[in-house]
């Protein structure tokens, strides 16, 4: 036991605080400041090789690394859950390299790194939410030329974005896009909210917390400062609708949180549980208190 903790201390000494060197962190902070000044604008940054593959959240990790201070309390979630592979590995990474306190409780965390969800518990001022972003460009699959998409952003030419929504309605009778649903930030830039379910989109609007987005492979950082207007795009006659599976969580019974669908038997029986594990635990606790 003693032996082990000694080794862990050794590991901490090998790395600079939070893995990245100070110059890199300064470069990322500069990009972050610029991103906060121009809400929704994609700031290019010199993304570094991280000790894990692209697609595992290298962008988010670099942003977290640049923001972390020793007294931070870190929470990492993957699809809402604290105990999935991606969340566990990133949390361990920062415990090892920054020795910061970690938590699963949303309300206790000062910095939350997330993949594909916004926590159900309302975020507060002085909290930072860091998103892992696979594709930062909302126009990517509509217009493949990067030079052209940048021009479209600069000139607010967003007709094409609506063509995508039009196609959805024409094909499915409603806007089928269920995740990475495009938003307009501060009435200006159309932004990709990373692949969060559109159920979470309203939480981005006027949030007291700072929202930072890091895309490692694509080398882009963008941000939504606190209390910024974030509007999901829609048509007058097909307004935006936040949607979720119309069931109750089979663990905590909550009907207002986003649910995962789980197939529980060979004959296809389904069960629904909260995707936000911390919220589910809290609700279960509340329920048992009520019963007492």
């Amino acid at each position: 036991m003693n032996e082990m903790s000694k080794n862990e201390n050794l590991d901490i000494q090998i790395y600079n605080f939070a893995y990245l060197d100070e110059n890199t962190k300064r470069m990322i902070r500069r990009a972050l400041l610029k991103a906060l000044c121009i809400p929704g604008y994609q700031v290019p940054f010199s993304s570094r090789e991280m000790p894990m593959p692209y697609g595992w959240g290298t962008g988010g990790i670099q942003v977290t690394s640049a923001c972390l201070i020793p007294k931070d309390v870190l929470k990492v979630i993957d699809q809402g859950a604290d105990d999935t592979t991606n969340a566990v590995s990133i949390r361990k990474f920062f415990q090892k390299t920054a020795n910061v306190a970690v938590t699963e409780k949303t309300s206790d965390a000062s910095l939350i790194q997330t993949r594909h969800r916004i926590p159900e518990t309302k975020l507060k001022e002085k909290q930072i939410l860091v998103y892992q972003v696979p594709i930062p460009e909302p126009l990517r699959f509509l217009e493949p030329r990067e030079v052209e998409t940048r021009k479209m952003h600069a000139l607010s030419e967003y007709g094409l974005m609506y063509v995508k929504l039009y196609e959805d309605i024409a094909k499915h009778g409603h806007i089928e896009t269920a995740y990475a649903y495009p938003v307009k930030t501060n009435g200006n830039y159309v932004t990709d909210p990373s692949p969060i379910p559109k159920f979470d989109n309203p939480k981005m609007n006027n949030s007291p917390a700072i929202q930072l987005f890091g895309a490692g492979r694509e080398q882009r950082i963008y941000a939504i400062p606190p209390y910024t207007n974030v509007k999901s795009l829609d048509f007058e006659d097909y307004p935006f609708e936040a949607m979720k599976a119309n069931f109750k969580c089979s663990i905590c019974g909550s009907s207002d949180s986003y649910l995962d669908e789980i197939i529980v038997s060979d004959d296809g029986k389904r069960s629904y549980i909260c995707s936000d594990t911390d919220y589910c635990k809290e609700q279960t606790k509340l329920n048992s208190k009520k019963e007492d």
Partner: protein
Amino acid sequence: MKQNFLFQASNISKYYGQNIGCKNVSLDINPGEVLGIVGESGSGKSTLLNCIYGNLEVDEGDIFLNDKSKTILNFTKISEPKLRLIQRSDLAFVHQNPRDGLRMNISAGGNIGERLMAIGHRNYGEIREIAANWLEKVEIDVSRIDDKPSTFSGGMQQRLQIARNLVTRPRLIFMDEPTGGLDVSVQAKILDLLRNLVRELGIAAVIVTHDLAVVRLLADRIIVMQNGNVIEAGLCDQVLDDPQHKYSQLLVSSVLQV
């Protein structure tokens, strides 16, 4: 300068390094008028068209548009956002190959609706209705509204491209060989359609072609180009019936008779 013109280009020159794209070309277009540009391959027709549309930067010369509010805009001086706004509201461009002008992986309705959404339409029902109307106008069955252009024939694709361009009621439409690469019967159908639409909506047009029959049918006036220079210009019938320049004479006399 005349006050009632729609579009005017004066002394346009474009060079590709040492080579001449087009040299000292001037032209003006009145509202509702159709101008044909003819000449052999490599004579600078497409270069000229792209220059006056604003796609290519000109090396010398000025381009003026008399816009809807009667202000005269100089393309070589206005900002890029303004130019792009004009390109998708007052102007339109029909490519020779419909694949260049259409989004092939987006339905016919979406293709027509794109320009509407680009100028601020945000009502799905309205957009769809307008799209359906335009499909009818270009004689495409309305039931094909949700099909992708890749499932259309060449002629249908070209008609769809025309609908997509005309939907915002531009005042001037540029066409680069709109009937090139289509078989003769389809060509005739598209020409017929174009003639009707242009006359009915009072849209001015510039048509680049090497097919003299096309200009005879559509154009009011033509200019003949060779090696980047305009060698003859005038009323369509006048130039085609009584060509003055050696090259125009050659061009007119080399049309195959059936």
